[in-house]
């Protein structure tokens, strides 16, 4: 009966069972944190993000699928382009449009140069006429190019007559998008 130990409890080494218990508790706590923050929380966040995505899709597309909406938009754009083209073509057919063309062709004629024939196939125009020499024909060709209403302006045919006059045929394409 001489086992009295006056070392206070707080200074004594804890028994093995207590230390084991503390160790197990610490391990459990560690596992809890690992499971909570490394597994459960990411899954939860993923689910929340997925739900948010669904809600966002519903609110933005109003029930339609996004791809479907894109297709619809593209169809609308194509429709509009068709309409613009139609209106442009319609403009070409109007008398006002052709008045400008004729005026240009006639106003650009030089002295002693005349037009005998004018024809149009699709957007290609053929102008046949007579001038006193080929220099005047070339001037006329240049003035047509400078008008900006025509492209690919070239002399298709040129005939020199006995009296020195020149019979010419000019081919050019209409610049349909030019106003």
């Amino acid at each position, binding site marked *: *009966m*001489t*086992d009295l130990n*006056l070392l206070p409890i707080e200074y004594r*080494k804890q*028994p*093995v069972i207590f230390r084991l218990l503390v160790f197990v508790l610490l391990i459990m706590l560690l596992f809890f944190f690992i499971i909570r923050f490394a597994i459960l929380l990411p899954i939860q966040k993923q689910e929340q993000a997925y739900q948010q995505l669904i809600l966002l899709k519903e609110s933005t597309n109003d029930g339609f699928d996004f791809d479907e909406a894109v297709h619809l938009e593209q169809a609308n754009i194509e429709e509009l382009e068709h309409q613009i083209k139609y209106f442009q073509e319609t403009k070409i057919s109007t008398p006002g449009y052709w008045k400008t063309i004729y005026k240009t062709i006639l106003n650009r004629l030089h002295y002693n140069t005349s037009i005998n024939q004018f024809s149009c196939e699709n957007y290609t125009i053929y102008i046949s006429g007579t001038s006193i020499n080929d220099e005047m024909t070339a001037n006329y060709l240049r003035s047509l190019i400078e008008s900006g209403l025509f492209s690919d302006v070239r002399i298709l045919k040129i005939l020199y007559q006995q009296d020195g006059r020149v019979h010419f045929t000019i081919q050019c394409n209409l610049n349909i998008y030019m106003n």
Partner: protein
Amino acid sequence: MINLPKQFLSLDMGNHSYKYIEAQLSDKLKIIRYGYCMQEQLFNSNTPAKTWRKVGSRFKNVVISFQHKSLITRELEIKDCDKYQLHNIVKEEFQQYQYDLKEEYDYDFIVQSYDEKTGIYMIKAAGISKKVNREYINKTFCLGMRPKAVDIQVNAIIRIIRKALNHSEKYTVQLPCLLIDLGYSNTTVAIINLNEIIALKSIAIGCSILNNLSDGYKIYLKEITLLINQIIDHYFYRYNNEELQQAYLYGGGSFINLIITQLNDQIPIRWNLLNHITQFLPDLPSDMDLNLYGNCLGSLYWIEEKYTNKKGSLT
């Protein structure tokens, strides 16, 4: 199963010198080294831990013991209670002592016996001034050691007597017997039998008085004689049956030859120095003086007992 050797240090923290024994425990106690160093030398240095490692020991696990007048032992009879309530009841008892003695206590208790018929627990409790105890514990930390237990020095001597009885048939002792520890600043007198302290009292007078006062010897002898008589009277008054026949004297003061002679004249019992037991103890270094190292050795026997019983755990 392999028993890993455990190294322990036993430290008797005196007011003048620190006595220590280094020991290794495997199957039996093996004393490796022992010695002492002056307390002043340690705590006057800037690095006490370093000084201690240099002049003392490098062992970490330590059982300490010290003398102080605040040490009290009590025998309590507790009845009609659950075993688990014992702690609270002892705590209440010590709270009462604390109130009476105006001193906070560190204490411990053991159940000495339990009578099933009466339901009475016989409790042995001991306490020491909390402030003093913590000071000594902190000193061991300061010296870089880990205190594993605080032993009661009288119990250490009981273990030595028990060890001698178990080891040698030639050794005889008249029990109960008187123990007188003549320390440098404290003197402790106790009446013991083989398993317990029957009575104990300490006073704050030690052999240092011989250096400090011209008539120090007279005062010292008078105080010791008074203390011994008080405790013997208390013993007779309390137990009134057996006569004390033997006394062991140890500690630094026991080196003064005149003391044992004069005590012999005044108190008619058989007086012995503790180193008388040395020859009956196993595996002791031949030059070890039990009068100085008795407290240390007894604490090591405690560790040995614990180690043998629990294979190394000392809690």
